[in-house]
């Protein structure tokens, strides 16, 4: 399966609603092990909300290694590559378990150190 992002979305990939459209197209093929190619030719502006929804959400159900094997990203410029890589790193953390009580304790500990 190959999708032209410019045809589907346009030259700006910056909002979550557009990311969701791409996610809806590619989730099932990827989940069933099909190769998917996203062609960003003609897309020039990028922001994290788009990639959070298009790709970050995939990591909830698809292991990162499988996603990297099945999903080909073509013609994505350097800015877009930076954003998508950061989103994948952060989504992997997001989908892990979090102990928010410990996070609050850690923040307070750092805060106390700074005050001393």
């Amino acid at each position, binding site marked *: 399966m190959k999708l032209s992002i410019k045809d589907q979305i346009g030259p700006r990939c910056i909002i979550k609603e557009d990311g969701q459209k791409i996610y809806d197209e590619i989730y099932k093929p990827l989940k069933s092990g099909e190769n998917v190619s996203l062609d960003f030719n003609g897309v020039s502006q990028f*922001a*994290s909300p788009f990639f959070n929804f298009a790709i970050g959400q995939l990591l909830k159900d698809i292991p990162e290694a499988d996603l990297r094997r099945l999903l080909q990203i073509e013609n994505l410029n*350097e800015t877009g590559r930076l954003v998508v890589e950061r989103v994948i*790193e952060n989504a992997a953390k997001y989908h892990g378990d979090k102990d*928010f009580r410990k996070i*609050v304790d850690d923040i307070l500990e*750092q805060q106390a150190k700074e005050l001393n």
Partner: protein
Amino acid sequence: MVQKVIPIPRINDGRADFATLFAIWSQANDYFEDVRFDFSGCWFLRPNAVAFLGGLARLIESRLGTVEFDWTSLQDQRVMTNICQNGFAGTFGHPTPAWTGNSIPYREDRTRDVGGIMDYLEQYWLGRSWVQVSKRLRDAIVGHVWEIYNNAFEHSGSQIGVFTCGQHFPRKYNEILVLSVVDFGQGIPAKIRGFFRQHADEALVSQLTGASCLRWAFQAGNTTKVDEPGGSGLDLLKEFIRVNQGKLEIYSNDGYAIVDQDGERYENRDISFEGTVVHITLRCDEKLYRFRDEA
């Protein structure tokens, strides 16, 4: 009802100037209040003040108060010309319509107007002939700056929207471009404390300072979203600003964050206000900019 007169002094964009703006907010923060802004002591008004005062006026109106900008009190002609040209004075009752010159327009977005905001950033902020940047760099900058607007609309809960103003400073050796984006929503520390209250004891959460909350918000992968991944926007923006020798400042509730070429610092402020101001300064020299593949 008696009209409260609030004097607007000279306002630059240093920390003390933001304290002045937050003190003005505090004075105008009652419901059903009628306010008149008096400019007789104002001989300097930076775009951060323009965006802030515009938003504050809409906040007062949303609380069923009335606002009068007393333009007859403004004696400084340079300030008057600037705020007429950028459309701010015309938005608030002055008869002179905005005109295209070397100013960057004042802008109000009650709702998320993606095309309008991106066109503004491209055409009116960056796209003027004063900034010699390639299309590649322009696209990178507007994408990163969009993260600010996205955060404001996604997280602030502001009922009156987002307010923007910018300015170009054509200095010979340090040409810069600034942009201020203001909302009067709940503020980042308040949002983070509210999020942690769902998971940890109130007694602990209430100890979190504004500085600590902002530091947490700036770290990659940290997000208050519960059903969708996030936590990349501020992280990407701060990296871009730092690599390219710009400056990013955020005032939100009682917290202050600054990112510049010296790193990132977080501080607590005495004056808290309900909302967020993002103030960015970019250098206008393509030679200073680097992409990762050029680093």
